[in-house]
């Protein structure tokens, strides 16, 4: 039990300590010494937190209440299987990206601030995973926005600041839309504790059914902002390119997933039975499919690598949301698998992009001809991860998409049961179209390529190892999915 608390508050406190202690920029002679201690502290904290989380993951228990906000609003923590899966993803990606940034951030100023917020994000993410009721979740959802915003605008350039603000306001907008729903849920449910089969009172459904549907839609839209769903996706392609690569990785792999987690929780609160077959579901399906297609298309015509990846994230997240919107158990499994697979893959891809930028300073795709010759390890990882995202067996991506398509076809929703898989396939094709050219040109620069300028620029181990780990994991999911699928089924059943 205490490990939950430790896994939440240890990184938060550590982050705050870093923020306060390293508030002035390091400079001159002290820089090296200061940096070393900073890295040591950060590294230790990351590892210790990871250990705490892992221990917490294996805890069983009913959860506990930290304190009461108001009379019937407890801050309540609990571990369930949904949380476990998310937490597992986080506990792998964050340290990886963290160690990656030890090298990546070497030349940046104000590293203390970066690591401080990084740790904060870690703690908040853990708290998000372990939240036991909606209000706790909302609390940390807001905090997540606040603490991750400094990561986005870390570089401090004008675009970065603007992007950070944009990210902040989009997220808050979503959060407040969600809060609107929470107010009504609070009055129409017995408690805000998470369930999977609906917490609305029967009387409330009969009285305000229509209105509650609207509320549900607003909540879905609101949390969908974080998950980059269509009308409010615009922050993603702005925020990713300006953030440092590891931050982008975390952002894309985990933070946007917080929106997905929220949607899962909200679905549980309303209950699938309540939403199935209503206009809410239809509208939601429409939005997700639009997002899927539009994201891929935009990515396809995007020349800047990180922005391309960002569009890709937009598209891929809506795969997940589509799976949830179908409200079918198989599709749910597909969604969850995609959460994990996409998490690893996108983290790997962003780290690769980061490594390329770090070493060569090139950001645009057409500049990267022959990059595979210069940084083979990185590019290999990039290629494998790309294949996973496209959905080539035996990677995790294939499996998840398979389940998604299967679930959609099973669901029996008119039109969408077929339209969904079709669009997913088209999108997969587009994915191939925007990711593979990079590998192809990277490894086969063509006849015109001047081999004379080629030089080995493989990054150091601190960068390649995390990338490799993540890539490997993405493949491993596809190969050994059974354990995970079992856990997912348990999660879907509410255990």
């Amino acid at each position, binding site marked *: 039990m205490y490990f939950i608390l430790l896994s939440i508050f240890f990184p938060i406190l550590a982050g705050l300590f870093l923020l306060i202690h390293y508030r002035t920029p390091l400079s001159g002679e002290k820089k090296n010494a200061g940096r070393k201690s900073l890295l040591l502290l950060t590294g230790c904290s990351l590892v210790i937190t990871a250990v705490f989380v892992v221990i917490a993951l294996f805890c069983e228990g009913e959860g506990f209440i930290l304190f009461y906000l108001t009379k019937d609003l407890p801050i309540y923590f609990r571990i369930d299987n949904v949380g476990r899966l998310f937490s597992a993803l986080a506990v792998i990606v964050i340290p990886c990206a963290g160690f990656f940034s030890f090298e990546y951030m070497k030349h940046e100023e104000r590293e203390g601030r970066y690591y401080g917020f990084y740790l904060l994000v870690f703690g908040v993410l853990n708290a998000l995973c372990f939240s036991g009721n909606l209000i706790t979740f909302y609390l940390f959802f807001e905090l997540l926005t606040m603490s991750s915003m400094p990561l986005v605008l870390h570089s401090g350039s004008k675009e970065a600041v603007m992007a950070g*603000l944009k990210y902040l306001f989009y997220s808050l907008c979503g959060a407040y839309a969600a809060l609107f729903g929470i107010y009504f849920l609070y009055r129409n449910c017995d408690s805000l504790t998470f369930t999977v089969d609906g917490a609305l009172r029967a009387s409330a459904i009969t009285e305000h059914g229509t209105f509650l549907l609207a509320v549900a839609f607003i909540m879905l839209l609101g949390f969908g902002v974080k998950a980059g769903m269509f009308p409010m996706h615009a*922050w993603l*392609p*702005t925020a990713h390119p300006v953030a440092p690569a590891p931050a982008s990785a975390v952002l894309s792999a985990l933070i946007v997933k917080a929106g997905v987690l929220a949607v899962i929780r909200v679905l549980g609160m309303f209950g699938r039975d309540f939403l199935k077959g209503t206009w809410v579901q239809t509208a939601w399906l429409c939005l997700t499919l639009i997002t899927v297609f*539009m994201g891929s298309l*935009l990515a396809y015509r995007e020349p800047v690598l990180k922005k391309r990846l960002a569009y890709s994230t937009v598209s891929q997240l809506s795969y997940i949301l589509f799976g949830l919107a179908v409200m079918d158990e198989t599709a749910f499994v597909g969604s969850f698998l995609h959460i994990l697979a996409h998490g690893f893959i996108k983290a790997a891809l962003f780290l690769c992009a980061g490594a390329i930028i770090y070493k060569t300073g090139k950001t645009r795709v057409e500049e990267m001809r022959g990059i595979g010759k210069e940084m083979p390890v990185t590019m290999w990882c990039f290629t494998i991860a790309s294949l996973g995202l496209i959905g080539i067996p035996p990677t995790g991506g294939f499996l998840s998409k398979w389940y998604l398509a299967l679930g959609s076809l099973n669901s029996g929703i008119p039109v969408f049961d077929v339209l969904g898989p079709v669009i997913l396939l088209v999108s997969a094709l587009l994915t191939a179209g925007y990711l593979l050219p990079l590998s192809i040109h990277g490894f086969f620069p063509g006849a015109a390529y001047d081999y004379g300028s080629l030089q080995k620029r493989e990054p150091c181990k601190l960068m390649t190892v995390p990338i490799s780990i993540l890539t490997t994991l993405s493949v491993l999911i596809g190969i050994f999915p059974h354990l995970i699928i079992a856990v997912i089924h348990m999660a879907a059943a509410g255990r």
Partner: protein
Amino acid sequence: MSRKKTAEEYQKTFAFRFFRWLSGEKDPYSGEVEMQPQKEYQPDPEAALRREKEHDAIMDKVYDTEHNKWMHLFHRLYQATSILFCLFLIALLLVTVSYLPAIGTVTRPVNNEVSGRYIEKGLEETGAINIVAGMILDYRAFDTLGESHVLFVATITVLILLRLNKTEKDEAEVNDRRFEPKNDAILQLVATFLVPIIIIFGIYIILNGHLGPGGGFSGGAVIGAGLVLYLNAFGFKKTERFFTEKTYKWVCFFSLSFYCLAKSYSFYTGANQLHSVIPKGTPGAILSSGLILPLNIAVGLVVACTIYAFYAMFRKGGF
């Protein structure tokens, strides 16, 4: 498509903006978040000057009565409405009059016990043969007291307005000389005859106020007229010998004081049901009807002086 839009035009289209938003390049906050300092208020002296000039110009235009079309129009309108108003008032009053009791009949409400008592008991109670004199100087003496003070206060205001101080007076006198008749023999001769007669007649009217038609005011006016004639015939030099501002002041003062005190006594005794010591005398005699005769004399003096004073004031602002 044959027509191609220029880049600038294209940027204004909805499609362009939509696409920018779609691809996340545009966001609703841009422009709002990037803040520019607001301009502090700076008073602009030139603007103030300009405003003043404009104001003057407008004022000139407004006061340019000759050429102001609106003003003329307004005048026309004003006159038209005023005539209409007059006609309306006439109509209203005529309607009212038509509903009033008929003239000359005994049954009008006016002929009630009040007038009846004045006629029947007036002689007995006031001792005056002239019932009107008895009424205004005894029954309704308070009104008459007020009336004489109206005259008094009017003189005061005329004094305030027209009386000149020393230096102005000299100047005015020089001016005035030019209009003075220069020893007009005929006028002087006629005046020598007429003035005493007029004044004597005035005195008669005053003294007979309680016995027949007449009284202080009419008699005083006649005397005043005589004095004015005298003045016109002989000039200020002559009149100043017996009538100066001082004379006027004291005559007025004593007359009014007497009037006030006498009436006060009478009011006081009347109100407190005391017996008044003033004898009524025999009706018809000169020395009769109690206070009416002295009061008439006092009023006559005041009026005579006032009439003369008005004339002198109007003419040259002093005596």
